[in-house]
């Protein structure tokens, strides 16, 4: 079960990715909370791809079977790239409640997803993230 979306950088297009997460999540049996967490994470990743990437980007969703089944989400753009290690890896390096308008995207992604891998070089940035189904009885 796989979804691939080639999306143009136009307003609200991140909601197409969120709708795809909802649909695939329901088909996989993910619960509502899990679906909403992945939706917010994919929205943030899409906004980054649109802001820092080019005029289009790609979202891939897939169900992964295994001991603990999970959803894999990839957001890929062809922008100038960045050094993910130079960005705060988690909120411990950040003052809670500081009113900064920016810089929350990657933090939210890391907090809402179970695993996140970012690879980036000029011309190809890929944010890959996983969420477990956690609907064990």
């Amino acid at each position, binding site marked *: 079960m796989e979804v691939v979306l080639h999306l143009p950088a136009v307003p609200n297009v*991140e*909601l197409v990715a969120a709708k795809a997460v909802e649909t695939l999540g329901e088909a996989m049996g993910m619960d509502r909370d899990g679906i909403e967490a992945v*939706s*917010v994470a994919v929205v943030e990743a899409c906004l980054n791809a649109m802001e820092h990437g080019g005029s289009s980007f790609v979202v891939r969703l897939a169900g992964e079977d295994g001991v603990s089944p999970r959803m894999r989400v990839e957001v890929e753009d062809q922008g100038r790239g960045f050094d993910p290690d130079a960005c705060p890896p988690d909120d411990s390096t950040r003052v*809670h*409640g500081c009113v900064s*308008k*920016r810089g*929350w995207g990657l933090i939210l992604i890391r907090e*809402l997803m179970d695993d996140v891998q970012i690879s980036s070089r000029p011309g190809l940035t890929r944010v890959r993230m996983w969420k477990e189904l956690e609907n064990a009885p």
Partner: protein
Amino acid sequence: MNEPQINLQTAVLDDGLGLISAAGYINNEGGQAVADAASELVGGGCQSLVIDLEGTRIINSIGVSILLEIMEKIMEGAGKLAFCNLTPTIAKTFEIMGLDQYAGIFSDREAAVTSFDTDGTA
């Protein structure tokens, strides 16, 4: 075009409490729409506001940052703010971004409204 993907309703309750119900996507435009509604209620004399997010399932960090900004303004004017009906993901996002330091977060509208009473601030 590019209209907010959010549905807002506002009301002033008997005791002068302002109520905003927001259902939809809290992005730039959605956050701004909530902020404008809040400013209007505060400008009209509401000292306390409840923002009910029932029906809001999706947010982004820019939208939430805009909410943070109105909260600061309301605090400056010694107003009080409470949120209710957050999904777990939205509650978690508010916590990560520190909104819970500025506003009470309650499970439902009644709890949010009552919080101002017991506060003695309504």
